[in-house]
């Protein structure tokens, strides 16, 4: 299982209706008057409607290790505070990443193994193979290509007329970067995004995937495509793309097909939604905070720090789930063996106890790097430096070209409590 089933579906009529009709939805409820035991963060409704923040705040204040006994996805614990999240994230012996890191337990027949959902030692062996492709030494070689592609995308955008930033910039740039990392045929690059979206889709009529079978067929197509690339690259000398690294790596070269696919999809999904939504999130944050945008215009040297602040503010993955391996205690709450424990990064990143003015977007925030969005411990985001580099280069090139990326309507948000992001962001560009 890669990411949860309940994961991403893009907003459309059917998902809107679903969120309104579902008896589990908390949309429109007053976060401070409903009985606290009824607060359920797992339902995507409040995330899509952008109503989640007061629920997180109330739980941090009144019930920071919160048990939700009834939800559409069963019973689970919510860990709300920065320091508690850190403790759970760095105790993999007590809080396991197996069998899955999504709130929803996987269907066995549609499950793919990957190292995000493995404990040591297997996790370490497999991660170590993939690591070098996104390690800073390799990124230095990629910087030139990334900048070229970012410039080309920006140069082709219309100035003075409305367009969708998500489709034309966020998706386009992240897709092109994935193609570079896999040395994937450029003309077929949109398949990567398609497979990523199918992987995280909840099958539903009119959604990204109509049925589980349709979703699974797309994943099979992905496997076949990559199997061909693998067969090509195994015959060549080892290269610096991910497929070649997996095909030649000692710990991965005899990997069963299912595991190869699971790890590929992990890297595709991991490098896709998260960066995409941080690219969009930066535009949203700067428009909501015009004084910070002005600060940026006056001093482009703040871009590096701003990138960390964007990643904190956006928190592109709202949570990661663990499963307790034995009875344990957290803030005097008794957690039982087998219980689901959800670390809400989106809450820890707004924790007043650790962060000064946590709800403010503050591009020169001190210690901006100390956010939870990448997780901590052995599962810490492997692509963190690549993500930061993509965002930094993009903003450097944006500031070379545009005075203002003006948002012209409220963005549409993803229907998911896991992937925190945008499906549409209408903007108008103003040149320098």
């Amino acid at each position: 299982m890669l990411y949860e089933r309940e994961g991403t579906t893009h907003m459309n009529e059917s998902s809107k209706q679903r969120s309104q009709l579902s008896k589990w939805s908390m949309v429109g409820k007053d976060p401070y008057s409903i009985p606290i035991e009824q607060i359920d963060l797992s339902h995507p409704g409040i995330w899509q409607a952008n109503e989640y923040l007061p629920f997180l705040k109330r739980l941090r204040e009144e019930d920071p290790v919160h048990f939700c006994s009834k939800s559409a996805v069963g019973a689970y614990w919510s860990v709300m505070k920065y320091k508690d999240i850190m403790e759970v994230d760095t105790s993999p012996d007590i809080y396991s990443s197996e069998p899955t890191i999504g709130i929803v337990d996987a269907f066995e027949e549609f499950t793919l193994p990957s190292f995000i959902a493995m404990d040591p030692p297997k996790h370490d062996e497999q991660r170590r193979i993939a690591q070098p492709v996104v390690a800073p030494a390799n990124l230095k070689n990629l910087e030139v290509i990334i900048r070229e592609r970012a410039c080309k995308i920006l140069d082709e955008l219309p100035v003075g007329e409305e367009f969708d930033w998500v489709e034309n910039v966020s998706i386009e740039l992240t897709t092109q970067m994935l193609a570079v990392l896999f040395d994937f045929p450029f003309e077929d690059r949109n398949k990567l995004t398609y497979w990523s979206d199918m992987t995280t889709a909840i099958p539903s009529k009119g959604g990204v995937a109509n049925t589980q079978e349709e979703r699974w067929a797309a994943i099979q197509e992905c496997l076949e495509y990559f199997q061909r690339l693998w067969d090509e690259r195994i015959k060549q000398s080892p290269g610096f793309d991910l497929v070649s690294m997996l095909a030649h790596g000692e710990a991965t070269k005899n990997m069963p097909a299912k595991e190869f696919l699971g790890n590929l999809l992990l890297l595709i999904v991991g490098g896709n939604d998260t960066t995409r939504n941080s690219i969009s999130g930066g535009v949203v944050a700067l428009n909501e905070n015009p004084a910070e945008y002005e600060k940026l215009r006056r001093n482009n040297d703040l871009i590096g720090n701003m990138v960390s602040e964007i990643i904190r503010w956006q928190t592109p993955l709202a949570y990661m789930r663990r499963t307790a391996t034995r009875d344990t205690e957290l803030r005097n709450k008794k957690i039982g063996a087998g219980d689901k424990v959800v670390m809400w990064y989106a809450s820890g990143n707004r924790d007043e106890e650790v962060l000064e003015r946590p709800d403010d977007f503050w591009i020169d925030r001190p210690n901006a790097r100390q956010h939870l969005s990448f997780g901590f411990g052995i599962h810490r985001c492997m692509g963190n430096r690549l993500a930061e580099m993509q965002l930094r280069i993009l903003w450097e090139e944006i500031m070379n070209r545009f005075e203002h990326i003006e948002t012209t309507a409220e963005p549409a948000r993803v229907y998911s409590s896991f992937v925190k992001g945008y499906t549409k962001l209408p903007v108008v560009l103003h040149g320098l």
Partner: protein
Amino acid sequence: MISITYIEHDGTERVIEARPGSSVMLAAVTNGVPGIDADCGGSCSCATCHIFVREEWLTKLEEISPIEEAMLSLSPDRKENSRLACQISVSEELDGLVVTTPEFQF
């Protein structure tokens, strides 16, 4: 005060006076030594304070804990003398310590 020398990847040397009880990470960060990020603030859980310890000092350090080992082992730049600076506490014994920062923090 205890003196620690930090050598950057390009050879630039900086000598810092650190207080006992501090850590090699904190001494660097509070004195503006570049090359150490310390994203997790010193809890051995991000590996962005990776340093290389000069050979002769290795035996004077406390042993690597399993958690530090787990974090270090994920770094592609891991070497025999790799340590996480947040896990080395400054003591009289370490007066004169010499460490090198890597070109990149992972």
